[in-house]
């Protein structure tokens, strides 16, 4: 369940380097929330800041994997079904009939 309310325009005027924030309501499992609250106390952070810190890296990794993983998929597809000689060609190896090269 997510309820959101944009932050007032006054705070997004660009004076601060802090990222723009938005108010929302999260419904989290109680034990998880307790752990986050304990962590926030240990780190002298607000619960919001603690959650933001915790999810930032995994979210970035997911975005990166989504973006970068497609490259490997395209590469795989670009090689599927090629003959051995065609595969060698795309690896930079050009093969010809032996003994036909000129000196």
């Amino acid at each position, binding site marked *: 369940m997510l309820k959101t309310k944009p932050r007032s325009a006054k705070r997004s005027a660009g004076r601060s380097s802090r990222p723009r924030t938005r108010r929302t309501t999260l419904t989290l499992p109680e034990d998880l929330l307790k752990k986050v609250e304990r962590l926030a106390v240990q780190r002298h952070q607000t619960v919001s800041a603690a959650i933001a810190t915790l999810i930032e890296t995994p979210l970035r*990794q*997911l975005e*990166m*994997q989504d*973006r*970068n*993983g*497609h*490259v*490997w998929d*395209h*590469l*795989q*597809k*670009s*090689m*599927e*079904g*090629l003959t*051995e*000689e*065609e*595969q*060698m*060609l*795309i*690896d*930079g*190896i*050009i*093969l*010809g*009939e*032996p003994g*036909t*090269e000129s000196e």
Partner: protein
Amino acid sequence: MTDPHTGPFVFDTSAQTYLARTIDAPEVAWRDAYAQEFPLWVSVMTVLERMRGHLLAEVNAEPSRRAIVAQKTREYWRSVGSAGTNVLGFTTHAAVVSAQLMALLPTAPSPPQRSHRLAESRQDRLSRWRFDIMIAATALENGLPLIHNNPQDFEPLRGLIERMPERFPGVGPLNLISVKRLAA
């Protein structure tokens, strides 16, 4: 085992093939972990080598296969154009480093390749060796480790730079990692 989070790395042409095709579970896990943090870094020379190969394959294909082979070319081009690929250009400095390497190691350390009925000519072997040198020079110039799949060719380059650092001011050492040892 090479920690994938210590990248980015430059991938040599055949190392890229090896990692794209692997079905070995630890290698696939390594590739996925790497993709969580880094795009695929390649030299523009790898793009040249691969595109030339794809286009030659199209030209040489039987008419009945030509459309399929052309589809493979488009698929490769999609991978190059995607945000997940970072193509490193070839600069004047890389050209000077390559020239030194080509002058000191003018011939390829390993013999020409062959399949059951065809063989690589000496000219094409030399051309491939020079591509390898330019890829190594690109990794050197950017101070990035080079992931490779042919130690017979890259180790002599590393050894030469180590023995004659005065010939390669401002670059080196050449840090090589075998693609087969990434997840081992």
